[in-house]
């Protein structure tokens, strides 16, 4: 069975390490905060200017002056802090944030990522994504393996305008966990019940399968 969006987030959460500052993008990445492994401490950074971001507020206590980068009302945890946009991106550009998780329309085997524009059709902008991918050392992409038409989004080369070059380190899709290195996707884990053949068929880029590939455990 392919993973649900929640399960993709759950699998990515296992990559979190103790004492890490983490930036979560909009969509599936936001859900990662629901699955922090027991026994570790992480702090979430929201690039609009918040560190120590907490869950959504209790109904009736929401504050228009306290939102995340997805413009959702949130809370701030004890020990959290608030700062201006330049300081926020100093944290990101200065590599003080250990992990970035974001969504993508396309990822290529050389680590390129495209997620901000479809020429002539959709132009929403890059927001903070270009700063994040140009600076972070660990970049995990959360995405569906294929688009609605069944075409692969895990490619030899991106066709859409790039957000960043050679930056993605890992991809977690509804079918697989892939490591991006040496100009190829390396299959690390399969979704439960998904065969290597299925993953191969859904991957346009070079896929390296090295020996036994375990199923993901939850």
């Amino acid at each position, binding site marked *: 069975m392919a993973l649900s969006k929640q399960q993709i987030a759950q699998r990515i959460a296992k990559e979190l390490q103790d004492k890490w500052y983490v930036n979560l993008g909009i969509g599936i990445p936001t859900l990662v905060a629901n699955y922090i492994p027991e026994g570790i401490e992480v702090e979430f950074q*929201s*690039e*609009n*200017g*918040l560190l120590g971001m907490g*869950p*959504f*507020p*209790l*109904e*009736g206590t*929401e*504050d*228009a*002056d*306290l*939102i*995340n*980068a*997805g*413009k*959702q*009302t*949130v809370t701030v945890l004890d020990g959290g802090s*608030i*700062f*201006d*946009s*330049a300081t*926020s*991106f100093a944290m*990101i*550009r200065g590599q003080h944030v250990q992990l970035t998780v974001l969504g993508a329309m396309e990822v290529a085997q050389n680590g390129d990522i495209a997620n*901000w*524009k479809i020429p*002539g059709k*959709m*132009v*929403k*902008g*890059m*927001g*903070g*994504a*270009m*700063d994040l991918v*140009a*600076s972070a050392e660990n970049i995990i992409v959360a995405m569906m393996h294929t688009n609605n038409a069944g075409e692969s989004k895990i490619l030899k080369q991106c066709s859409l*305008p*790039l*957000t*960043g*070059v*050679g930056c993605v380190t890992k991809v977690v899709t509804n079918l697989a966990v892939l490591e991006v290195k040496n100009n190829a996707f390396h299959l690390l884990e399969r979704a439960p019940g998904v065969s290597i053949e299925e993953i191969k068929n859904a991957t346009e880029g070079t896929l390296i399968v090295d020996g036994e590939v375990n199923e993901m455990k939850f």
Partner: protein
Amino acid sequence: MINKKVENVVEALQGVQSKMTFMLGGFGLCGIPENAIAELVNLNVREVTCISNNAGVDDFGLGLLLQNKQIKKMISSYVGENDEFERQMLSGELEVELTPQGTLAEKCRAAQAGFPAFYTPAGYGTEVAEGKETREFNGKMYVLEPAFKADFAFVKAWKGDTAGNLIFKGTARNFNPNMCGAATITVAEVEELVPAGTLDPNQIHVPGIFVQRIFQGKNYEKRIEQRTVTSKA
């Protein structure tokens, strides 16, 4: 103490003209200068350039100026919340310079701090870097980005005093502090304007030297774009 207080938004926006470049604070609809935007609509200045992270929504924030076709060019990082914006951009009516969010913030801060330009890794290898100078430092590639130049910066703070000192609340801070002093004239509107000497100098987020005019704002709507809550157990 140098007094920066003006009586109202009309006085605060004196000198605003068509074809000028404005900076506007805010992230989404959070911390936007609502009073200044309403007055820009009222003044009906045309062909202006706006530097703002977002473009509001169809019927609020900078969306009001877009509807009125007052904006010639937008410099933003994310505009996904505004259908009218997307329509004007795709049809070519509106000139748009999409800029990575951290670069946008730093272009403000550089203008404030007297740096003509700076190198950033953001956008290297993408169309954002096309035509720009690039340079390698310690094995990594960077793009040269110039500081912004603007005629007016419109910012919104929670509290301010007559000396122009500002304190922000929550994530309504965002770009506002970085835009103060980054334009020829910075206009701050505040929810609560107090006499100089009332605020604790240790708690000031933006020193008054970066603000030329300050006024008591009114009728703040403070709209929430995405109301997300946890239900009571």
